[in-house]
């Protein structure tokens, strides 16, 4: 094992895990002094083309409170056919099927390279995937047209046996029955009335009592298929009907008078969608896909009234406690989200409008169920169209990149407890010996439900070291954690993925260097950022920033090398060197700063931040900037105003935006048309290079980023200017007195100033 960097990378590739600390402080006291908690980023379904699933059930520890899965870390007595659980030390008999095992004939789960292994299990009937479209019809004509086309297109992308359903809404909510000939039939609900799940099921005729049963026994099975067939149909059967139905979909016919918003019953529509699936297909994989073009304006879950003169709430309103619908609406959607999660279904929200659409209130629907949240200006944009298409992308096996109804169980060895999880999940409220009382994120449980997830869905999992200082761990002792993820694969198989990892314990007093060297500053930054964003959802922004700052200062105090009260002596080792910079950008990021963002945008950004993997998360915290010039091949440059030079083309990736920025000179050249002249073909290539690279990013990214092509002086250049470190501003421009870079009109502190302050505070003995 060469370096920690390689170790970390290997581990990530094999297990989809990145720990903040890769050597663990061995006592609670020391662990708390490390400032950054012991935590990891787990990508439960990380794509592993090299890992074919095994076709049998996992072997479990027989202790009822443990039930850990047999793994390579277990001690095995091949002769006695016994194995010892490495979490509870219970000795277990191998099941009969394992009689043939020996040192040379090991089952896969005992081999070290299978620290992550996937089991395919046969349990229960396999139900096809379900896709329930919930479509807003209060759209502009061309928007609706574009949406209809996207939806029709999506029908061809769905698995052929998938069940689909359609709910449309505007002033009313219509649940379309898909099995009718000769007449199109729908059930209509008032958009202003909240209905219980029971009422919805009664009204849709989904309850058993609604069907007089002549022969109770045999009717049972038939009935179920009958019920489902009315609103949810296999796509291959009703492909044409649904295509026609979507084609005939009209804009909401109710007149909207001048100065009013259309009445949009999003709250009820979602409620009905949830109720419908709840009644028909509980605990099977299902996506509710909500397409909306504006804020809910009536009924439960309304976010804004229909008077246009009253604008939708802003952060300012919220701070002033002036968002009169927010609390109630949020509550409505939270209840729905929790119900959906309990049923194992997930909700996607595709919101395309120029104004806000109420994502702030509705965010829990996606955040608690693992659904997607997509925000765009219009359905008639490639941003939406391609993003939507990408939902149905397939992996190397030809399987859809989606999984449903997962439960994640975390088991720890005795020295550790689980403090909580931050990610698109809900608690299953399973208490156990390894659940910490110290809560971080979604806490108080050792199991979580993730209703919708894809190969990149990443959770931040936080632990607490509970080993007492006076109970030293034997030399060479290792702590172990096992992640057991049971889920429904997109092929409808039930699968279980088990990842078992172990790390060394170290005594922080004697082996601090080890611990320090094993610090994963990237993971730590993201994990701390998740904590910060999680807090920001419930706390005032400044408090969160103060908390982050204090943590950073404490970390620097703990791990920096300096002489007291001498800022200039401050040094950080390599494994920490980038961490302050991440924090600097995090403080400026839209995840924590709401200034200049609408509440919807903040919710959108935070949504994605809480589920992307480490690489993407880092890009979100600190965007990547590439520079293209005649001086050499493209190179990453500092995210700094000094990088903005006249003869460069810059490509910035903030995850949500891809910005191509032509420097002043380049822009002039292009304007002069040099790229069209044969003798300046190299200029043409230079112009093309960032476009190609951007395309590559666009291809892979979900959701599609906003693609911005701008140049020096362009209005869209603000996307770049707002992100770079303002090392040159109108305040200090003359002090620098150089022509390099571009001054940023801001009063924000630059990284340099930030670092100066940090050093000063770190070395000060005052705090």
């Amino acid at each position, binding site marked *: 094992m060469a370096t920690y960097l390689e170790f970390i990378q290997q581990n990530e590739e094999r297990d989809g895990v990145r720990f903040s600390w890769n050597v663990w402080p061995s006592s609670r006291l020391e662990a708390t002094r490390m400032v950054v908690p012991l935590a990891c980023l787990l990508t439960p379904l990380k794509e592993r083309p090299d890992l074919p699933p095994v076709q049998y059930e996992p072997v479990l520890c027989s202790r009822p409170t443990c039930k850990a899965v047999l793994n390579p870390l277990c001690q095995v007595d091949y002769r006695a056919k016994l194995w010892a659980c490495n979490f509870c030390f219970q000795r277990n008999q191998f099941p009969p099927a394992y009689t043939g095992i020996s040192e040379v004939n090991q089952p896969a789960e005992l081999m070290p390279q299978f620290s992550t292994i996937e089991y395919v299990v046969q349990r229960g009937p396999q139900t096809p995937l379900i896709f329930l479209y919930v479509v807003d019809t209060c759209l502009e004509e061309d928007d609706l047209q574009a949406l209809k086309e996207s939806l029709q297109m999506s029908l061809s992308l769905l698995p052929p046996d998938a069940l689909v359903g359609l709910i449309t809404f505007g002033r*009313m909510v*219509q649940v379309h*029955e898909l099995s*009718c000939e*000769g*007449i*199109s*039939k*729908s*059930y*209509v*609900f*008032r958009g202003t*009335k909240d*209905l219980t799940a029971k009422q919805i099921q*009664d*009204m*849709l*005729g989904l309850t058993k009592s609604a069907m*007089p049963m002549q022969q109770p026994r045999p009717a049972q099975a038939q009935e179920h298929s009958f019920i489902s067939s009315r609103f949810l149909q296999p796509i291959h059967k009703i492909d044409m009907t649904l295509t026609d139905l979507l084609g*005939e979909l009209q804009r909401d*016919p*109710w*007149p909207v008078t001048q100065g009013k918003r259309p009445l949009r019953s999003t709250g009820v529509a979602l409620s009905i969608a949830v109720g419908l699936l709840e009644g028909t297909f509980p605990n099977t994989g299902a996506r509710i896909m909500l397409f909306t073009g504006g804020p809910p304006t009536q009924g439960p879950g309304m976010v804004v009234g229909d008077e246009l003169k009253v604008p939708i709430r802003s952060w300012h309103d919220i701070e002033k406690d002036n968002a009169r619908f927010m609390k109630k609406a949020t509550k409505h959607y939270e209840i729905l989200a929790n119900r959906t999660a309990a049923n194992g279904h997930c909700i996607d929200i595709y919101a395309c409008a120029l104004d806000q659409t109420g994502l702030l209130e509705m965010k829990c629907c996606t955040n608690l169920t693992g659904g997607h949240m997509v925000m765009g200006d219009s359905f008639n944009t490639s941003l939406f169209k391609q993003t939507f298409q990408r939902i149905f992308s397939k992996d190397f096996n030809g399987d859809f990149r989606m999984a449903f109804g997962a439960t994640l169980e975390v088991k720890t060895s005795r020295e550790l407890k689980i403090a909580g999880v931050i990610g698109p999940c809900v608690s299953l409220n399973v208490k156990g010996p390894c659940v910490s009382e110290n809560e971080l994120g979604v806490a108080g449980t050792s199991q979580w439900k993730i209703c919708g997830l894809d190969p990149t869905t990443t959770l931040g999992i936080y632990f607490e070291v509970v080993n007492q200082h006076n109970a030293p761990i034997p030399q060479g002792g290792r702590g172990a954690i096992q992640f057991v993820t049971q889920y429904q694969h997109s092929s409808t198989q039930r699968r279980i993925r088990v990842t078992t990892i172990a790390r060394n314990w170290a005594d922080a007093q004697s082996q601090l260097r080890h611990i320090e060297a094993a610090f994963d500053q990237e993971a730590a930054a993201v994990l701390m950022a998740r904590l910060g964003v999680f807090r920001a959802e419930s706390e005032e922004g400044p408090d969160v920033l103060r908390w982050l700052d204090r943590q950073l200062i404490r970390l620097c105090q703990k791990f920096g090398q300096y002489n007291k009260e001498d800022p200039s002596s401050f040094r950080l080792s390599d494994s920490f060197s980038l961490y302050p910079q991440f924090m600097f950008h995090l403080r400026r990021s839209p995840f924590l700063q709401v200034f200049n963002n609408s509440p919807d945008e903040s919710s959108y950004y935070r949504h994605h931040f809480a589920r992307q993997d480490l690489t993407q998360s880092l890009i979100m915290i600190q965007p990547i900037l590439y520079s293209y010039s005649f001086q050499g091949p493209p190179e990453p440059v500092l995210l700094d105003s000094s990088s903005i030079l006249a003869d460069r083309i810059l490509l910035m990736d903030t995850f949500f935006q891809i910005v191509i920025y032509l420097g002043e000179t380049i822009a002039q050249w292009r304007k002069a048309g040099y790229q069209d002249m044969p003798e300046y073909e190299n200029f043409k290539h230079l112009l093309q290079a960032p476009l190609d690279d951007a395309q590559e990013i666009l291809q892979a990214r979900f959701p599609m980023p906003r693609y911005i092509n701008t140049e020096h002086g362009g209005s869209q250049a603000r996307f770049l200017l707002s992100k770079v470190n303002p090392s040159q501003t109108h305040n200090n421009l003359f002090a620098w007195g150089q022509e390099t870079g571009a001054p940023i009109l801001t009063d924000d502190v630059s990284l340099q100033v930030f670092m100066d302050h940090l050093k000063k505070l770190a070395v000060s003995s005052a705090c």
Partner: protein
Amino acid sequence: MMSQQGYVATPPYSQSQPGIGLSPPHYGHYGDPSHAASPPGMMKPAGPLGAATPGMMLPPGPAPPGSHQFGQNGAQASSHPSQRFPGPSPVNNVASSYAPYQPSPQSSYPSPVSTSSVTQLGNQLGAMQINSYGSSMAPSSQGPPGPPSAAAFQGPPRPPQPSILQPGSQVLPPPPTTLNGPGASSAPPTAQYQPPPLPGQTLGPGFPPQQANYGPQMAGAQLSYPGGFPGGPAQMAGPPQPQKKLDPDSIPSPIQVIENDRAIRGGQVYATNTRGQVPPLVTTDCVIQDQGNASPRYIRCTTYCFPCTSDMAKQAQIPLAAVIKPFATVPPNETPLYLVNHGETGPVRCNRCKAYMCPFMQFIEGGRRYQCGFCNCVNDVPPFYFQHLDHIGRRLDHYEKPELSLGSYEYVATLDYCRKNKPPNPPAFIFMIDVSYSNIKNGLVKLICEELKTVLEKLPKEEHEETSAIRVGFITYNKVLHFFNVKSNLAQPQMMVVTDVGEVFVPLLDGFLVNYQESQAVIHNLLDQIPEMFADSNENETVFAPVIQAGMEALKAADCPGKLFIFHSSLPTAEAPGKLKNRDDKKLVNTDKEKILFQPQTNVYDSLAKDCVAHGCSVTLFLFPSQYVDVASLGLVPQLTGGTLYKYNNFQMHLDSQQFLNDLRNDIEKKIGFDAIMRVRTSTGFRATDFFGGIFMNNTTDVEMAAIDCDKAVTVEFKHDDKLGEDSGALIQCAVLYTTISGQRRLRIHNLGLNCSSQLADLYKSCETDALINFFAKSAFKAVLHQPLKVIREILVNQTAHMLACYRKNCASPSAASQLILPDSMKVFPVYMNCLLKNCVLLSRPEISTDERAYQRQLVMTMGVADSQLFFYPQLLPIHTLDVKSTELPAAVRCSESRLSEEGIFLLANGLNMFLWLGVSSPPELIQGIFNVPSFAHINADTTLLPEVGSPYSQQLKMIMNIIQQKKPYSMKLMIVKQREQPEMVFRQFLVEDKGLYGGPSYVDFLCCVHKEICQLLN
């Protein structure tokens, strides 16, 4: 004889016995003849009589009394040479108006003489009749000497009328004395029957002479009964041989009264130029000419002469009421209503009472101002409306403006009269079909859908328009509702299911209500699909209130008035507002709680009706019950919203579909007004206090109706709040603001002037029995909701007795207590009242279906006079004596079993049912001719249609059935009844003069009973 018939019957009560001896004198009435004959000195001055009788000179067609004014009015009428409306030509006016009027005074006596068997058989009776007219005259004639009283009669009419113009006609009134001559001369024939004057004078309170005249006849009659009649009715008729039973022929016959009126006034022109004239009976066909008062087709009154004071009214206990049918159909030979358009200014109205400009407004000050005939307020004439007056103070444009010269006309309403000051949208019809299991199974849904395809072609439209402006919509339902989008550009209809029946709403706006012509293809597609769509449904629960709610909401959303056609068949037991349970508890019958059966089960329907009316949503309900469905609850909304309730018990496709389809077609095509508010204004001294009908009232004056069609009548009761002047009379203006079928807002105005008199006799003389029964039926049926039936029946009997007793006491000449004396105008009141009392609503019998009682109760509440007359006293026509060449209806016979014969075939109709009764020995050629079978035994009674035979009998019978059916609001289902077979029981219920199947006295018994009451009252 001379007089109008007052009938006298002498029931066999014991107390009357002693009277026998004394009675003869009592019987004597003076009629006209008496005046003429015995006390000539007295009589001659009794001008009024004379004045009344002048008509004798003219063809002796009798007419109801009260004609004194006619002369003058006739003059007035004839003085309208410039009348512009193409109605009657002035010449006709003269002729026609005179013709009927003048005879009227003597009306009574010619008729018995000329026509009736009644008079022939019981001529003594006829002689004994108190001529209400005569009797009424008597007091007046007695007090003041003749001339003044004559003046009094002529006086009142005079001022308004420009009699100067008509000197020629004026001639008539003056010579009363001479006219008396003829009267006297005509008297002899009757006098012959009454041989010697009897000595009863002594008993006569004040009129010895007259009694002397009549006594003898009576005596003859009386003689018959000493034979002894323990309790049975005494018979009046048979002087020749004493009978045990009162001869039914001797008691007043409705048929006779109808035939008399027909004979006298049938086929003639009746001009409405005279205040307070009594119109022909509803059963009489005549041409009505509007000359300043509303046609009796629109308004009929219980009496056309109001008592001057409330004391008088209380004394007589005759209800003062008008039965208003504002949208009544007028036959093609009568002029339709004129439409007055004053542009943006709208109708001219009195500033104080808001009455509309009408012939009762008096222009003064050279036409610059006018005095309101209702409140007497003097108003300025709006400049645009100014017109000079002619030398008699009448506007020069009198005949050019309908509102100045006609009793009925329409105004174009301005935006002020519209909801939200917006012109209304054309109305919509929504068809709402119960598609629950039973309706699918019995084929009803298919039948309706098929029929709608053709019937929708005939949506009502304005005459000048190509297509109907009415839009249509469709809803089906069982325990949920299905709305249909049938927009013309759709390839196929769309169905939208609303399951939230707890709080129903309209799921779509565009495409629900459509123009039939435009969306025909989609609609037909839908109607084809509906029966199949639910073919597999085994849902048998239904909702009801949400259905109405849905229709109402749809109309509300479309911002238009309209009508819902609901086809429903079961008790709505599904969980929803208005859910009903079976509460048909026969144990309640004949208890104080019986009224509960007539009340709706829940107040949901009441508030629903209120909402419907507020939004101009009328509900017509077609019910197809196979068991108890709680008509009292289901029918409430139709009733209060001016809709119609149709009920087909145990609907069977082959028997009932024709009746249902006829009803459906008829109902769709009906003339109808929507979103109506009616206001009845009266001149000072009295006011409308109570309203009965398919109406809803939020306050005490505005009668709101979601819709009102040509068959719906509102009965309005009036009460005094001050004295009425004989000069000014009692004026009524009924204004109905409504929306036409093409979406125009209009005002329909009906004006009617009534007389006032301080003489009770005038009041009795001007009564109309048919209207009285209409009023009594409605007020009794309304009271059914609140009072025990027993009490209501008692009240009816008491009031009947009281009215008659009052007459006896105050108007009739003194006579023996044992005599029953009926005013001429109320001769048949007892028999009709008995029919009312025997109606199943008022009969507390558990055998009768609760639903049927609730149904009939509701029907009667909206009936007009003609309908109620037929309903309570069915028409019974002998068919076996048909003259196949005649196009007239055969003369009806009285509804009694004794009128049937084994050799006869009879047709009976009451407006709801029709029966063809076949005697066991019916002539085979008739049976062959009608049924195309050889004999009675071969007749298949299980059909509602007569076979197509083509024989003259068959054609004639069908023609008669058509005539009977014409213009009746309900299609009558024909039942074939063979004598002595089971179904005859049903038929017998309609022989209303007989003892009722479920109790209720026979006519004769009832008459005795009433007489007894009267006697008690008089004592």
